[in-house]
């Protein structure tokens, strides 16, 4: 069955080709939707079948590599020989990612049929979505760094195309003056910021090839197992890889693009900017766990960046008013948790949170899409309210998502977030401070999520007479219900020992992370009394956050008002996202633009490049003129030149 793995990857590509080439001729939206969703659905079915087969295998025999063809082969037989094969690797980690990408992806495709109904670019949207799934599957199923990078770049391209899908719409992008930017600028910002990270990835790849002489995961990781902790090369490789991860997964300092990526249609935000693409960095670090295990310093960096991002993004989320931007900052914050987990060497906890987050964050985004749909493209939650009456299904499912992300027992988020917090506390790579940051972040998360829920669904209507909210069609609500169900029970795949579970996901992933665990001498610890205390604490703080939001936004709106007035500075700091965009604008973007304009454009480009080019051009025309004199059209001249050539050849051979 595993030999079918390439079909998982190529089916969405076929969908892309069909829709991309003939989409504009297909008149029926239904047919386009069926093709677009169908290919992803079939991919999911194949992935599921492979998964079922793998469950029946010995844990250490679950890795399968399917080779397709040699892609690049050069310098064979020498020390610098390079041999890149297009091959897909199915193992516990990649099949889990594949199931998430195709499963959640399928639901979002179905949802989009309703959401994009009537859009002029309906076929284009589905073509891009299918291309995205193809690239993402290449990323997770690749068996070498180069193919992974191809997927990495591919998802970046699709992200760019989809953020700017409505390329002519106005959109306020951080760093631009209000009212001057379009969604296209948001797309460009995402792309350029990601380039910085991608550059790190490229450098890491070159260094990997230099160090291990291969780009294949197997060879690299086997080589890494023989190295000792603290290896210099491993440090630089992992640091550069992490730079790549901060770009794709929107971590400090490169997180600024993700909130603006909300310019894209909401299903895109759900699929690419919440459930799958942005977790690519997490997946990549987990995939390279053995390399990171060799570099404790990098792990430390990862943990600190993760924890910082978690709390910074959560605090920004407290005061935002755009429903999608709140969710965007929430995503940044949750990704921070995942990196915190990876940084304290709790790789499977990071992947566990990635999984549950995919469920509830996709749910929340799709729910917000249903709200926006109902409100005729209104996204300001201050202008909503009381929507639960009109959108009962959306409300219920959204509430489940909010409870799940807040981390209330027994919803999915509870188990995965608690696992991270416990590891942050107990691991020798973690610390009490990191745990504390995590817990405070959890409290903030609960607060801003319920602020969002209450302002949107509860209380009184704050919209005009002309708006008539209506529940979304079945194609949109059914995915919501399925995702709500998953957000409810998704956590049960990782019930810890302290709850008399056996943490299935950790056992499932164990063989993948075994080399790293062995290297770091991680031991499986038993049940601690402390764990219960900490758990109760974090639950209490989450509950307090929810209560606080409820109190402030239903009973005492004056509290919010007075807090805002009392702490104007703090409020404006948070509302303006710590002025990060402005700081980048002053320190990086502005000087770069100035430098480009003054020195590179008017100095280097005009003087040097154009000068050289014009010089070349006149040189060419002079030479051409000269040659035209010889190129007379008279055959005798040609014969003379010919003879000249022969004389030269013979003289060279005889005299030299």
């Amino acid at each position: 069955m595993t030999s079918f793995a390439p079909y998982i990857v190529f089916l969405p590509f076929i969908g892309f080709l069909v829709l991309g080439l003939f989409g504009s001729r297909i008149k029926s939206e239904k047919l386009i939707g069926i093709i677009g969703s169908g290919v992803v659905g079939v991919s999911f079915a194949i992935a599921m079948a492979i998964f079922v087969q793998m469950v029946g295998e010995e844990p250490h025999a679950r890795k399968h590599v399917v080779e397709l063809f040699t892609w690049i082969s050069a310098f064979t037989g020498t020390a610098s020989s390079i041999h890149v094969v297009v091959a897909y690797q199915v193992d516990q980690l990649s099949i889990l990612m594949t199931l998430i990408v195709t499963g959640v992806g399928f639901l979002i495709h179905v949802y989009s049929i309703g959401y994009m109904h009537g859009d002029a670019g309906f076929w284009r949207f589905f073509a891009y979505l299918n291309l995205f799934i193809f690239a993402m599957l290449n990323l997770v199923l690749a068996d070498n760094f180069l193919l992974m990078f191809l997927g990495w770049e591919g998802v970046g391209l699709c992200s760019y195309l989809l953020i700017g899908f409505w390329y002519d719409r106005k959109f306020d992008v951080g760093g631009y003056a209000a009212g001057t930017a379009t969604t296209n600028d948001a797309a460009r910002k995402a792309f350029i910021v990601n380039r910085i990270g991608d550059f790190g990835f490229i450098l890491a790849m070159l260094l990997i090839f230099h160090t291990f002489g291969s780009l294949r995961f197997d060879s690299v990781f086997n080589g890494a197992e023989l190295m000792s902790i603290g290896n210099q090369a491993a440090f630089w490789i992992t640091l550069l890889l992490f730079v790549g991860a901060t770009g794709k997964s929107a971590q400090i300092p490169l997180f600024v693009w993700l909130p603006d990526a909300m310019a894209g249609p909401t299903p895109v935000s759900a699929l690419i900017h919440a459930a799958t693409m942005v977790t690519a960095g997490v997946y990549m670090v987990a995939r390279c766990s053995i390399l990171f295990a060799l570099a404790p310093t990098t792990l430390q960096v990862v943990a600190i960046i993760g924890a910082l991002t978690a709390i910074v993004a959560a605090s920004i989320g407290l005061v935002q008013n755009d429903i999608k931007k709140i969710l965007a900052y929430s995503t940044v914050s949750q990704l921070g948790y995942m990196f915190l987990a990876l940084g304290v060497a709790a790789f499977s906890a990071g992947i566990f949170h990635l999984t549950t987050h995919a469920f509830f964050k996709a749910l929340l985004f799709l729910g917000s899409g249903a709200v926006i749909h109902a409100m005729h493209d209104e996204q300001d939650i201050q202008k909503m309210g009381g929507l639960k009456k009109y959108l009962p299904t959306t409300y219920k499912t959204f509430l489940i998502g909010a409870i799940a992300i807040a981390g209330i027992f027994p919803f999915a988020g509870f188990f995965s977030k608690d696992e991270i917090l416990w590891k942050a506390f107990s691991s020798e790579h973690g610390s009490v401070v990191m745990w504390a940051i995590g817990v405070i972040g959890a409290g903030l998360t609960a607060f801003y999520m319920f602020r969002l829920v209450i302002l949107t669904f509860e209380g009184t209507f704050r919209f005009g007479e002309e708006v008539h909210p209506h529940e979304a069609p079945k194609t949109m609500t059914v995915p919501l219900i399925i995702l709500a169900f998953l957000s409810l029970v998704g956590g049960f795949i990782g019930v810890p020992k302290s709850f008399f579970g056996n943490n299935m996901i950790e056992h499932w992933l164990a063989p993948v992370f075994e080399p790293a665990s062995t290297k770091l001498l991680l031991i499986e610890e038993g049940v601690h009394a402390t764990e219960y205390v900490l758990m109760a604490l974090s639950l209490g703080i989450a509950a307090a956050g929810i209560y606080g939001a409820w109190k402030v936004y239903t009973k005492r709106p004056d509290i919010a008002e007075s807090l805002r007035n009392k702490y104007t500075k703090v409020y404006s700091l948070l509302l303006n996202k710590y002025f990060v965009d402005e700081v980048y604008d002053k320190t990086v973007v502005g000087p770069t633009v100035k430098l480009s304009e003054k020195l590179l454009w008017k100095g280097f480009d005009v003087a040097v490049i154009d000068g050289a080019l014009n010089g070349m051009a006149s040189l060419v025309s002079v030479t051409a003129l000269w040659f035209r004199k010889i190129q007379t059209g008279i055959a005798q001249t040609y014969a003379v030149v010919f003879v000249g050539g022969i004389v030269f050849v013979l003289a060279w051979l005889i005299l030299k």
Partner: protein
Amino acid sequence: MSLNIADFVSSSPLMAVTATALLLILVEASRKGRPGLSFTLSMAGLFAASVFAVVNYSDEQIVFFGMLRQGWYANFLNLVFLSAAMLTVLVSKPYLERQGAHRGEYYILILFATIGMMFMAGANDLIVVFLGIELMSLCLYVLAGFFRTKDTSNESALKYFLLGAFATGFLLYGITLIYGTAGTTNLEAISKNLPTLSSQWMFMVGVGLLLTAFAFKVAAVPFHMWAPDVYEGAPTTVTAFMSTGAKAAAFATFVLLFHQVFQFTGSKVNDLIAYIAAASMVLGNVIAIAQANIKRMLAYSSIAHAGYMLSGIAAGNSEGQTGILFYLVAYTLMNVGAFGIVGLMEKVDDQNLQLDDYTGLSQQRPFLAALMAIFMFSLAGVPPFAGFFGKYYVFLSAVKADMTWLAVVGVMTSLVSAYYYLRIVVLMYFRDGKGDVAAQPAIPALVAVTSSAILLLQFGIFPSFIVNAVQKLF
């Protein structure tokens, strides 16, 4: 010594084309004025020969009393020649019909030229090499003058013939000198005695004369001067065939002689070839920029491409051989494709042959424009098209042979070449057209150019398919 059935079997591609050509002569003699039948028969014969070539893709063996060497090498190139011939035949039919010169002997000449090429690639004796070259060249002289009422076509044929005869003289003289020193024209025997031979200056003069003759055939600087005039004046589809099949055949012999027989590495011969390569790349690319006529531009481009491929010969290593063979496949596809489109665009009386005539093509013939863009990108060496890997492999071989400077020249001149290739793309896509540019496309020609484009993409993404075919049987 006696004639074996096995000899015929192993050279069945050659036999198939010969039989078809002979049959066509009979057909033409008995049923005059039915060129459609000749078209069909020649396609069938070429296709059958390709099938035989695939079936016989195996270890090499010497056949016909040591005259021919048949096996993977000959058949790899046979497939290139046959593809070039088939694509040319496909684009020729509508072109000749439109130009009012659709006559059956055209196909016969194409087939005989192909036979000559196949002799060249499968030769095991200098005499066979010579016979092959002459058979091919004579057919091409006639083909170049196929529009016999047109001055330009006649001029092209005459110039090609005069200079070709000139080059043949030196080729024959070179063979004579080699025979004089080696006492044989058999390639295997020469290869065996090489250590003693290469110290004799007379032998080296012979080699030098062979080198000039082949440099003439591939249109390398300074033996290139005929190419622009001939390419411009000949019927466009004949130019397509000359610039691909004939060039591939010359390179086939080049590789055969210089890689496999003489086996020079790091010698002064390699240096000499490197200079010729560098001069061709620089000159071809620079002068191409100044051209306004697309056929002339492609002629200079083909001089430059000869330079790229010669880098592989100069390198003299196995990578060079792989690189050239790969390059030939890519080059054949993209050049036949480009000339095919030029042929589709061309109107009677040499209309629509200027670069400006391609302005705004994307609006009127989006499909043709897209194909032309693919060929231009591939010629410029942009991935994911096969042209990229062709360049990659020959430059790689130069680097491995410690001729990094040659690879640098190659890359720099490729950069220059992007200017004139992409200018066509710019004209087609970013300028408004003046209306009615394209002639009515015809099905066989469209089939040919489309399949060329698809194959370019395929070999650009899966280069290992061809590389394995070359290396597996090394």
